[in-house]
């Protein structure tokens, strides 16, 4: 119900200012972007889609920040695993 899907905005539609097309893994749907009327929205922007409406513009910066942090956490562990694998005597 509270399902929200990130989608890439590919087109604003001429027939109505609130209409746009998003792409989710190559799948397209018309959505209503009226709730983001005060954002500058254009092709290439990502939005969170909920029941046919764009609820939020996704910030790539914020997204990357979290990922960097998480990957930073993960790195030592991955390094250790790699070491384990290469030392395998089989």
């Amino acid at each position: 119900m509270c399902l929200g899907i990130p989608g890439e905005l590919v087109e604003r539609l001429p027939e109505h200012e609130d209409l746009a097309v998003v792409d989710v893994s190559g799948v397209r749907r018309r959505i209503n972007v009226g709730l983001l009327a005060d954002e500058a929205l254009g092709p290439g922007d990502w939005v969170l889609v909920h029941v046919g409406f764009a609820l939020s513009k996704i910030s790539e910066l914020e997204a990357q920040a979290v990922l960097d942090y998480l990957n930073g956490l993960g790195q030592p562990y991955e390094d250790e695993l790699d070491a384990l694998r290469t030392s395998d005597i089989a």
Partner: protein
Amino acid sequence: MNREQQVLARIERIRRRKPVVREERITLAHGAGGKATHTLIEAVFLEAFRNPLLAPLDDGALLRVGGERLAFTTDSFVVSPLFFPGGDIGDLAVNGTVNDLAMCGARPAHLSAGFVLEEGFPVADLRRITDSMAAAAAAADVTIVTGDTKVVQRGKADGCFITTAGVGLVEQPVTLSASHARPGDAVIVSGPIGEHGAAIMLARDDFGIEAPIVSDTAPLHAIVAELLAAMPQHVRTLRDATRGGVATVVNEVANASEVAVVLREDDIPVRPEVTGVCELLGLDPLYVACEGRFVTVVDGEHAGRALEVLRSHPLGAEAAIIGTVAAAPAGLVLLRTAFGGTRVVDVLVGDPLPRIC
């Protein structure tokens, strides 16, 4: 056992009880291929018709005629829309029955076709359907040898329903059944899953979604024949992953064979567009129907060879080993998620999808 485990064990026992239809009326869930369909089949159809040939509830029945083994199967097709990217009800009706015969290990030979047409149905559409049935039959090397046509008043059907039945010969020394899986066996899917169901959903245009997804409908007899020829003794189970999807098929195997199946999410082939549709609609691709993919359980030691054989056929180019059979917990399908966790994969409950076949 702690209290949670005791409760869960009791639930598993209850799940194994004789299924009962509690509903007073048929709902769409009864036709979705999942739990309600199974319950209906077992509590109503199997109950009324009970006989040893029907009891296994495999894709078809195995008959003995003289010295020959004959497979016999039927499917009704009510897909909406009738025409969709990659196919139409006509080739679906032929391929569906060809595939059920193939899943019995049979070489499909002859089909029957019963049509229920709605008054007002365009004759041109009917010709388009029969043409594609003829083409599908030719491709599968079967003939449509007998048929029937009924017409019902406008508003009493949905354009065109087709029921095909088929007979085929089991020529290889195989014994296939959903109940033949054993611990150590490998579970293989013949290609990317969910394309048919996703294509139908988009073709209905109920959700305003567009994607370049084409139904996977295809006749599977040839690829199956190659697999069986390569290892007649090592193939335990064949089942096409239609309504209810791969999840339901694998559950059928786990139940019938009283084994556990462990699937590995990372290895299950799903095209990105199918993933996209599923995400948008909150569906799980494991439950989305295919019409040209099958699941096979093979002896674990021959799984690599089976994969080779499948991949050498165009319809199996993306075949993958997606799981293994374990002894316990019997009747349960588990999924190792891509995230590194584990969860249960149950049969489909309810009807998340429009009429797909």
